[in-house]
C-alpha cells in the first residue's frame, strides 16, 4: 500500500503542469530559458531571454499567436511570469491575478482581492506590476496594502497579510521578490507622507520576519540629515519597485523613492537619508550593509526606485561586481555592489539641474532649479528621465538599454499640510509636452555609460525593454507601436500597431519548441511568435 502511494505521488508530480518552483529553481532561473520565473527574469534583473528561435533573421515574420483581453479598464504595467506552460499576470485596477494557458491563451483561474471602494491610491494609477512565485504559491501585493499568497493551481487564498494601513496612504503596486523562504515587498505612498520601509514575510505563514525603515528615527544613523523637526515622520522614501539579489554576496538591493513632501523641503532641511538611494540589505535580518544616495535633498520627485541591474565587468583593469541604474534624475550610475563604492556616472538624457557628479557620486547642483511659486522649468520632467519601466542588459552585447524621456517640467512649490491618507506633496508640476517633447531608446556601454546608439521615439514613453539571445531588443511607444530592434545596432527589424499605449513589460518564453514574446498594450496582452 505504502509503495502504491509513493508510486501514485510520483505519477501525479510527474504529470502536473503546475510544478513546484523551489528557491533552487529561482537561483538558477537562467538555466530555464523556456520559463520566466521572476519579475525581471532573474535575480540580476537583466530582463534578458537567452532564447534564440526568434532572431535577427526571422524577426520580420513575427505574428500574433493569441491575445488576452483584461477584465477591467486601467493602466496595465504588468510583467507576466511563466512557469511550465502557465502564465501568471496581474490586471488593474483591483490587483487581479490571472493564470493563463500559455499554449492557447485561455484562462485557468482568476482572483480579485476585495478592494474597498474608498481605497487610497495617491501618487500613481492603481497599477500592478506582477506576481512572484515560490514553491506552490504565487504572491501579489495589492492597492489596499495587503500581501496575499495564492495557491498556484487554483488561485485560492493561502494567507492574506496587511502590510500597512491603506487609510494612511500605504499601497502596493510592485511584484514581490521571492527569496529562500521569504517574500520581500516595498510600499508606495510617499505622496501621502508615509515613512517607507522594506519588509520580509515568511512565505509559508505570511508573518513579518523583519522591517527596515528607509527613513531613520531620531538617534539612528542618518537622522542628522532631516533637521531638528519631525519631518522624518512623514519623510516618504517609498520602496515601490522590485529589488535585485546577489546570492554569492548574500545582499539584497532595494531602491528608495522621493522624500515627502515632494516639492517643498522647508520642513526637511538636509540630505534626507535614505530617500532616493539604493540600500544593500542582509536578507536574513534586513540590516543595512551599505547605502548610496543619488539625489540628496530632492525637491523634484526624482525617486530612485528604478530597476537595479547586476553584472560583472572589469573597471580600470580590475574585475568588479557591479550594480547599475539609469536614475530618474537623468544620470546613469555604476557602483561596486560589494561595497557601494561609487565608480561611474554619465548623463543619458537632457538634464538642466546639475553641473555634473563629483568624485564621491554627489551631484553638483546648479542654482535656481528649485520649484517656485510661479514655476521653474527644469529637465528632466516630473516623472523623470526614467521611471518604473524596465531597462534591459544583454550579456551578449554588454549594453544597458534604457528608454529615456526627453521632457521638461515647470515645477511649482506649494504648502503642504499633513493629514493621514491625503496628498502631502507641497506643489507639483506642469509638463512641457506635445511636439516639443520626445524620447529615445539608448544603448549604453554598461560599464562607462557612454552611448553606443540611440533609436528616437516620437514622445516620452513608458516602455520597458527586453533583450534576447537572438540579438533582438523589444520595446514600444505611447502611440501603440511595438517593435524589434537589432540589439547591436538599433536598426528596426519589425513593428506592429497594437492600438493602445505600450506600458506592459515584455517577457519571452517557449513552449512546445516555439519561442513567444508577450507584451501588454492598452488593456490587452498580445503574444507573438514566428
Amino acid at each position, binding site marked *: 500500500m505504502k509503495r502504491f502511494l509513493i508510486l501514485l505521488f510520483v505519477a501525479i508530480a510527474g504529470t502536473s503542469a503546475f510544478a513546484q518552483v523551489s528557491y533552487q529553481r529561482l537561483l538558477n532561473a537562467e538555466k530555464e530559458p523556456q520559463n520566466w520565473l521572476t519579475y525581471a527574469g532573474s535575480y540580476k534583473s537583466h530582463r534578458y531571454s537567452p532564447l534564440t528561435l526568434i532572431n535577427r533573421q526571422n524577426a520580420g515574420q513575427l505574428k500574433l499567436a493569441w491575445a488576452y483581453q483584461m477584465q477591467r479598464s486601467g493602466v496595465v504595467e504588468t510583467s507576466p511570469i511563466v512557469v511550465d506552460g502557465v502564465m501568471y499576470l496581474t490586471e488593474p485596477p483591483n490587483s487581479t491575478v490571472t493564470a493563463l494557458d500559455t499554449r492557447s491563451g485561455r484562462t485557468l483561474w482568476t482572483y480579485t482581492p476585495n478592494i474597498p471602494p474608498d481605497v487610497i491610491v495617491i501618487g500613481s494609477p492603481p497599477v500592478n506590476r506582477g506576481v512572484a512565485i515560490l514553491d506552490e504559491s504565487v504572491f501579489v501585493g495589492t492597492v489596499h496594502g495587503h500581501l496575499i499568497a495564492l495557491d498556484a493551481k487554483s488561485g485560492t487564498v493561502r494567507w492574506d497579510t496587511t502590510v500597512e494601513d491603506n487609510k494612511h496612504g500605504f499601497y502596493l503596486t510592485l511584484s514581490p521578490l521571492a527569496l529562500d523562504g521569504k517574500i520581500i515587498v516595498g510600499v508606495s505612498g510617499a505622496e501621502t507622507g508615509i515613512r517607507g520601509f522594506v519588509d520580509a514575510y515568511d512565505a509559508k505563514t505570511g508573518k513579518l520576519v523583519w522591517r527596515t525603515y528607509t527613513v531613520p528615527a531620531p538617534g539612528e544613523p542618518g537622522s542628522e540629515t532631516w533637521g531638528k523637526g519631525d519631518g522624518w515622520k512623514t519623510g516618504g522614501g517609498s520602496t515601490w519597485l522590485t529589488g535585485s539579489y546577489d546570492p554569492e554576496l548574500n545582499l539584497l538591493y532595494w531602491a528608495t523613492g522621493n522624500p515627502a513632501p515632494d516639492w517643498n523641503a522647508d520642513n526637511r532641511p538636509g540630505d534626507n537619508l535614505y530617500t532616493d538611494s539604493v540600500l544593500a540589505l542582509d536578507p536574513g535580518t534586513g540590516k543595512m550593509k551599505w547605502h548610496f544616495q543619488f539625489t540628496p535633498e530632492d525637491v523634484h520627485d526624482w525617486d530612485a526606485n528604478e530597476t537595479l541591474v547586476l553584472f560583472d565587468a572589469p573597471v580600470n583593469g580590475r574585475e568588479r561586481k557591479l550594480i547599475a541604474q539609469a536614475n530618474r534624475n537623468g544620470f546613469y550610475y555604476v557602483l561596486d555592489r560589494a561595497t557601494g563604492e561609487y565608480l561611474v556616472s554619465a548623463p543619458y538624457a537632457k538634464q538642466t539641474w546639475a553641473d555634473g557628479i563629483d568624485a564621491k557620486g554627489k551631484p553638483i547642483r546648479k542654482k535656481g532649479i528649485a520649484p517656485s511659486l*510661479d514655476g521653474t522649468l527644469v529637465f528632466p520632467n516630473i516623472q523623470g528621465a526614467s521611471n518604473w519601466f524596465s531597462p534591459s542588459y544583454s550579456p551578449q552585447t554588454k549594453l544597458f538599454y534604457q528608454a529615456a524621456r526627453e521632457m521638461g517640467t515647470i515645477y511649482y512649490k506649494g504648502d503642504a499640510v499633513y493629514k493621514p491618507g491625503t496628498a502631502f506633496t507641497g506643489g*507639483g508640476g506642469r509638463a512641457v509636452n506635445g511636439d516639443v517633447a520626445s524620447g529615445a531608446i539608448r544603448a549604453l556601454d554598461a560599464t562607462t555609460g557612454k552611448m553606443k546608439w540611440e533609436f528616437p521615439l516620437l514622445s516620452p514613453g513608458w516602455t520597458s525593454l527586453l533583450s534576447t539571445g537572438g540579438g533582438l531588443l523589444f520595446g514600444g511607444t505611447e502611440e501603440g*507601436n511595438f517593435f524589434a530592434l537589432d540589439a547591436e545596432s538599433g536598426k528596426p527589424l519589425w513593428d506592429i500597431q497594437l492600438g493602445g499605449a505600450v506600458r506592459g513589460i515584455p517577457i519571452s518564453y517557449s513552449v512546445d519548441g516555439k519561442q513567444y514574446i508577450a507584451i501588454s498594450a492598452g488593456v490587452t496582452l498580445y503574444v507573438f511568435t514566428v
Partner: protein
Amino acid sequence: MKQLIRFGVVLLAIVLPRVSGAQSAADVQAGKVLFGHLCVTCHGFDGAGGAGPPLNRAKLVNAPDDAALRTIIADGIPSRGMPRVRRTLDSEQRQLVAYVRSLGRTARPASRGDAKKGTELYAKLNCAACHIVKGQGGTLGPELTDIGVQRGPQYLRQALLEPGAVLPNSTLRVQGPGYSEFLPVRVVMKDGAEVRGIRVNEDLFTIQLRDTSGKFHSIRKSNAEVIRKEPNASLMPSFAGKMSEAELDDLVAYLSNLGGLQ
C-alpha cells in the same frame, strides 16, 4: 458683569457676519494671487481668456456650481488639455473658487467690436469655406461653434493675424496632450511624389495627413524621403493688413459670442 456678557454677545452677533464677509474678501484676494501663479498663462489676466477659456462670465460651461469648479481646480480637465498645474490645498481651492466667481460678478469689459458687423464679415471673408459653425461650413480648419467659450478674445485676434503662432492643441483627443493640431506637414516620398496637408495623427512608423481637398494620406515613414513639420505655419491665411482695426474688432466680437454664454 452679566450686563457686560450680554453686551459682549450682542457685539459678537454684530461683528461675526462682518468677519465672515472679510474672510471671503480675503479669499478673493488670496485667490487672485494664486491665479497669477498658476492659471494666468492659459486663462489670461483677470480671467479674460487666452488659449484657455475666458472665466469672467456668470456661467461657466464645465463648472455650473462651486463644487464642480473646485473639482476642476483640484484635478484639471486632462481630456480637454487642462493640466493640474500642481496639487492644491483645500484652502487654496476655496480661494481660487472665490476669485474665479468674483470675475463673473464684475461686468465683462465691453467688446470693442460690433458682433453684428462681425457676422457679415465672417460671411464676406468666406470663413465658412474652412470652418463649421452650428453644422454649416467646411472642415479644413477647426470647428468654431463654441469658440467664444473655448478661447479668449486676445487669442482669437492673434489667430486672425498670425494663425501659425497659435495652433490649437488637445481639442480633438486624437494625439496625446500638448500636441499641435492642424499642423502643416510636407512629405516628399522616395518616388518623388509630394503631399502637403495637416497632420491628423502620427505614430513612430507612420503619419496620417489630410490635404486641402480633404483627402487622407497614410504614409509609412520609411517610404518618405522628407517629412517636414511646420510648427509655426498654418494653412489658414493671415488677415494682417487685410482688415481695418475696426473690422478686426468686429470679427473678434462675433467669434467671442459663439457658444452662447455671455
